[in-house]
Every structure is written in C-alpha cells, then in structure tokens.
C-alpha cells in the first residue's frame, strides 16, 4: 500500500528499483500540496508530459487539500490522458516501467498513473522478408501499439477485438491477442489465450520465444504462422484465425496455419486468377526441386543411369570422370558449402554479404569446376536446387535440412531410399494438426471448397460470394480439437 507520507513512498519505490538511474523523480507543488512525478527515462514523451501534466498542475492557483487535489487531478486535469489510479508500490513501478508517469500526492494514500508512452521507435517501413509487388509497403515494427493501429486502420469494424496482457515474469512483455468476433472459434481463442497466460518464460524478446508454446513438438514444420505484414495478418483474422502481436517483435504470429499457406503470397490476389494459379504451381514445383533434385541426381547417377537420356548420360559421365570424388561426396560437399555461404551472407552487413556471394558463387564455383574438384552438372544441380529454395522463403530452413537428408538417402540407397524418405516425410507432415485443422488440408483431407484458394485461386467474384473459413478446410465439421 502507498503511505500517506510522500517521501516514504519515494524511498520505498527507489528501494524496490534498486536505485536505478533511469527512474526520474521530480518534486513540485500544486495547489499548495507537495507532489512528486515519477517516470522512467526514455519511456515517455517529455513534451506531452510537460503539456498534459506539468502545465495543468502548475496552473492551479488556489490552496487545496490533498484529497481535493487528488479529486481534481482525476476528474478535471487529466481527462485528455490514459489515466488510472494506483494504490500499491508495485502498481506504481509497473506503470512507470510501462511508459506511464506516476503522480504521488503528499498526505494522500494513492496516486495517479498517466499514460504518456513516447519511447523511440523505428518508423513503419517495407517488410524485409515478405515483399510484394503491388499492395501496401507497410510492415510491422517493434512497438505493439503501432502494430495494433496498423491492423485497426485496415479493419474499422467492432468485430475486430484486441486483448492485451503482460507475459514474462521479468520482461513483463505486453502482447496482444487479436480475433474477429463471429469468425473465430471461441474455444480456440480461449485455448490460445490460456496458453499465453501460462507461458513459463521469464524473458520474452521476440515472437519466436512464444511460438514453441503455441505449436506441437514437430521436428520440422510449425503450425504457427509468422508474418511481417499487417495486411496478411488482417486476411488471416478475416478467415477466422487468431493473431498474436508481441511488443518488441516485428513479426506477428497467427494460428492455425496450414502447409499450403507457405505457397500463397499476397500478390496472388491482385493478379489474374490464371496467373496466380501458374505462379503457385511454380512454387510447389520449386519446393519439390529444392528438396529432391540433388538427391534424385545422386540416386540416378549412382544407381539408375538407365533412366537418364543417352546424350545427357554421356555428358554427365564425361564430367564425372574428371573428378576425384564420388557423386555422393561431391553432392554433400557442395550442399554444405552452399549452406556455409548462405549463413555467412545472412549474418554479414549487406555490402560484405554481396562480396561473399561473388567470391563464393562465381570465383570458388568456377575454380572448383575448372580445377576438376567437382563436376559442372553437380554444381548446376545444387545451384538450381538452392535458387528454387528461395522461392518458398518461409520453408527455407526445412528445405535445407530435407535436401541434405534426401541427398544421403538417394546417394546411399538410390530411388528406394528416396521412396522411403518421401513416405516418412508425407506421414510426418500429414500427422500434424493445427488446432483441429489438418495441417495438409485442403489437399488432404481433400476439400473442394478449400481448394478454391490453394493451388487454384478462384476469381474475386466467386470468392466474394462465400469466403472460406479455416474450419471448413478439414473436410467436414468443426472438430474443436484444442491442439
């Protein structure tokens, strides 16, 4: 509880804050009463603090009692602000650290917290990972409230609701659960909210910290989507999904997510349906090429040369005859080399990253072939597979791992190894459920309605007649599985 004596309260607060230097304490007099304004340096907008708090308080000329001043502050002076009364030392500290300023009054056992959040934030810019050709250039930023406003600007309907809460024992990170009333399964909303509320983490710095607690423990795929784009999140919410925005992260999460969504981009909806269909087919094909092509090449070259056309086989044999390593060894070395280059290019500043790409891709690539260390066809195979992997950017990590596994299976056991690997991969993917919706739907279980926007993309005239909701994609009724 707050004491009546102002100085005691300030001492208590300082003690709890361990004398932290970012705690700003400003003593003043208002209406003849001693007051103290507490804030956290860098968390509030000082101009608004002066305009909305200091100026009205300094303009009180008459002599007031502490109780009258408190009533005046809450009833008349601070009506333009997000304001709440505080009665506990802990409440004062939470408010101050959350970007509020706290006004404590001598002789009064309570204070007022005034929302003046005004910390420095990155401005809204184009997303780094989910770029599109047409459409909005806005991407999420780190500040939760800006992200919420980016969504609200796109849906000015009361059906869209935001529920904020604090998670993380130490970080006390603010998160926001968004959903659209009437489209979201209430049970799902409750499940997600409960999971977030009981998160066992003390420190949450990124949405990736929260993601594992919303998904099942699958070694490869995640049934929780992440996006940098507010328009993408809005479209997901409209389909009945639940969004989670985490303060400090420019990535919003959404559940449920389906496998086929990795192949859908926002640009598909502004193109003609037939072109969108073609592009989506290309993406599926690129995914298959990215994971299977090198393994297939190793299998055919090692075990089944009879499947390769004669002219091509002669060229391949001539190229391979000049190299000292087996096909499998070449394949593994090149794939690992590519992964090393990618990792180096990813972490370095962009200008240095380009240099790495040039040295790695052109110089080393050319030299290893001319020096006879690897065959040109193998280099080409890995290059095609790598470039194809970039097309489905959301699955890049999975593609890297799967490609390596299939190289080993194809190189060691031929097409039979690939067959067993593919079978196990299919079983593994098909076993996933994303909050009651099969991860592979609407491909399997097959849903004709869901297929209108999977590989195919129906025209807006058809889609506007009845928008498919996520729970219609499991081939039957809502199942209410809580994931």
């Amino acid at each position, binding site marked *: 509880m707050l004491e009546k004596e102002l100085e005691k309260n300030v001492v208590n607060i300082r003690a709890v804050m361990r004398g932290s230097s970012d705690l700003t304490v400003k003593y003043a007099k208002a209406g003849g009463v001693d007051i103290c304004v507490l804030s956290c340096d860098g968390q509030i907008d000082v101009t608004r603090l002066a305009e909305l708090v200091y100026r009205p308080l300094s303009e009180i000329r008459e002599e007031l009692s502490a109780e009258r001043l408190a009533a005046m502050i809450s009833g008349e002076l601070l009506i333009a602000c997000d304001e709440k009364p505080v009665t506990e030392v802990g409440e004062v500290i939470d408010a101050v650290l959350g970007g509020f300023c706290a006004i404590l009054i001598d002789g009064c056992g309570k204070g007022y917290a005034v929302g003046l959040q005004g910390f420095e934030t990155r401005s809204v810019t184009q997303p780094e990972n989910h770029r599109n050709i047409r459409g909005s250039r806005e991407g999420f930023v780190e500040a939760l409230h800006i992200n919420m406003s980016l969504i609200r600007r796109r849906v000015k309907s009361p059906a869209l609701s935001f529920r904020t809460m604090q998670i993380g024992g130490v970080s006390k990170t603010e998160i926001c659960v968004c959903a659209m009333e009437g489209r979201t399964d209430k049970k799902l909303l409750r499940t997600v909210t409960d999971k977030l509320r009981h998160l066992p983490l003390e420190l949450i710095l990124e949405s990736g910290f929260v993601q594992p607690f919303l998904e099942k423990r699958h070694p490869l795929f995640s049934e929780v989507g992440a996006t940098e784009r507010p328009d993408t999140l809005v479209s997901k919410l409209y389909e009945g999904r639940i969004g989670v925005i985490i303060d400090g992260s420019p990535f919003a999460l959404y559940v449920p997510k389906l496998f086929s969504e990795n192949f859908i981009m926002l640009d598909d909806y502004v193109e003609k349906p037939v072109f969108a269909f073609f592009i989506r087919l290309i993406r599926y094909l690129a995914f298959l090429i990215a994971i299977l092509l090198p393994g297939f090449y190793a299998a055919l070259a090692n075990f089944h040369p009879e499947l390769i056309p004669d002219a091509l086989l002669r060229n391949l044999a001539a190229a391979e005859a000049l190299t000292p390593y087996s096909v499998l060894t070449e394949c593994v070395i090149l794939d690992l080399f590519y992964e090393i280059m990618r990792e180096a290019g990813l972490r370095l500043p962009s200008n240095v990253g380009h240099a790495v790409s040039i040295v790695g891709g052109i110089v080393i690539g050319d030299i290893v072939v001319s020096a006879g260390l690897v065959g040109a066809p193998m280099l080409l195979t890995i290059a095609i597979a790598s470039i194809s992997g970039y097309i489905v950017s959301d699955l890049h990590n999975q593609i890297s791992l799967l490609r390596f596994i299939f190289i080993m299976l194809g190189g060691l056991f031929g097409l039979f190894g690939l067959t067993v690997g593919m*079978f196990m991969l299919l079983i593994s993917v098909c076993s996933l459920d994303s909050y009651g919706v099969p991860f592979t739907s609407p491909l399997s279980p097959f849903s004709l309605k869901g297929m209108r926007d999977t590989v195919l993309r129906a025209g807006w005239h058809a889609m506007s007649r009845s928008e498919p909701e996520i729970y219609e994609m499991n081939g039957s009724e809502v199942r209410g599985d809580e994931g």
Partner: protein
Amino acid sequence: MKGDMGYRELAAALAVSRIFAETAPMPDAYRTYGMQRFTVIAVSFLLTAAVYLPLWLAMRKTEGGLFERLADGNKAVSGFAGALFSLYLLSAAAETGLRAHYYTSSTIFDSAPSVYFYVFVGAALIFAAVKGEEAVTRTAVIISGMFLLLLIIVTVSVLPEADTDRLYPAFIDDGGSFLPEVLREFALNTETALFAVLGGKVREKRGRVIPLYLGISCAVMLLMTFLYNTVFGYMLSRLTLPFYSLSSAVDIKIMHRINGIDVMICEMAGMLRLALIVPAFRGTVRACFTRGKAADIAAVVFAVCALGLAELFTVYPGFFEPMKRLTDSGLPLAAFTAVLPLAALLIRRKKA
C-alpha cells in the same frame, strides 16, 4: 469409439492399397490380359460388393468395428474370430512385403540384399504406426494424387501406341481359367476386411467407404487393362511386371523412361498397405483381447513377424505356396466379410 478418420481418406487409402496389389505382382507370377481380364475385374468387384453387404448390415447401426460388435455379443466367438483374422492379416502383410520386395528388387533395388529392404520398410512402418491411422489415410490421399498424375502421364504418352483394333467383342476367352482368376482377384480385396476394423474409426458416412473404394479401384484397373490390351496387344498378354512395362514405353524427354518413378509411387502404396494392415491388427487385438500398451507391443511384434515372414518367403518362395493357395481361393476373405458379420448379426439377435 468414433475416430477422426474421414471416409474419403479411408476410401482413397484402400483404393491405393488395392492398386498396389494390381501393379506389384507375386514373384514369378504372370498376369494374364486379353478381353477376359475386363470381365474378371468387373465380376470380382461385383462379388466383393456382394460379400460386403453382410458386413455393411453388421456395422450399420453400431459404433466401432466388426470385432467390437462381436465382442459385445460373445467374447469367446470374438476371441476365436480375432485370432483367425490376425492370422489372415499376417498372411496379407507378408504377401504385401513379398510383392513390394519383388517389385523393387526386379526394378530399382536389384543390387542390395533383401534384408536392407525389410529393415527400411520396417522403420517406415513403425514410424507410420506411431503417427496413427489418420496420418496414414491422409498420406494416402497425396499418394493417390501422385498415382493419378502418373497414370494420366502414362495414358497420354502411350495413347498414340494404343491400337483399338486389338480389342474384340468377347467376355470369356478361356472358361477353364475364368473362375480361378475371378476368385484370385476377389481375394486380393483384403481392403474390405481391413474396413471391418478400420471402418469403426471413420468420423462420419462410413457406409460410403467401400462403394467409393470399389468404384475407384475398379475404374483404375479397367483403364490399366485397356492400356495393356491396346498397347501390348494379344501377343504380350502374359506379363510379370505389366505396369512397369507400360511406363517403360513412356519417354518424357527429361528422363529416358519413367519406370523408376512408377516403382517409387507403387512402393509407397505398398508401404501404405502395410501401414493399414498393422493398425487393423492393433484394432483387432484391442477389440478382442487387450487394450492399452499390450496392443501396441503386439502390433510391433506383428510388424516384425510379417516382415520376417516376407524375408523368409523371399529366400524360400515355396513356403508361401500353401498359404497363397488358401487365400487365392477367396474363402478367408468371404469368411471375414460375409460369414463373420452374419454371425455377429445372429448373436446380437439371439442376445436381444
């Protein structure tokens, strides 16, 4: 005991499983074609539909599979029937392993010892069993899509080679071989027996599973027979690997032939068939003998035994002959899809 399996997924899984039996033959067995083959397929599927009727009647108004219903009526009868059914499933699993191995070793996996094959398939099987029947049936939808795509490519590619003059108006070419062939084809519909167990886990509309399965399988097999007859002609009416031979004729330019791809897809269908048989066995054990972990352990032992038997039959093919003669007669299948359901109906009526 309603499950979470969709009826369309189970129908697709059963159809894929049946088509595997069509594409992958038994070691050194010839498949006869000609006009009679159309009639054999049609009659065998009609026969399957006929013997399915009692099963449909027995499972119509109850939840769970046939054996749950039997166990409700009489524990001793269900235990005895369950034991016999388990033996039948073991034979079907061993036969599937044998077919899959023969198909693979004759085509894309010729140089490796058979034990490698069974170890790999066993690993995939255990993985599938852990992931559950629902994952298996969903996988079946994707494999059936792959097979359909392959079939379209093969059909479009070989159609210029097809000569419809090779078709002639006849239903039965050889009266002596007609009935054994019909029975052999009928006996290959083990999927109806699998439905007796797995059907209990279908979420809704389970009455549609077998009609869908029969329709899809029959249509695909008739199409394949049409292609064999019109492309290969009468002179090649006996083949060991008919579908492989057909896909050998396809040249899609990127690859010289696509008969490695067809083996891959058919092998996946074979593993899928095994992956359906194992949960069917586990379901039988759960309904007739014991629930919980013991049923899971029994399923693992069953899978190991089935693949071990398949390996034994690979090395000593003669051992499988007596069992094959019995299953080819169609009697075990008829017993489990017609006689047993009728018994279940009778027991229930008597109890009521």
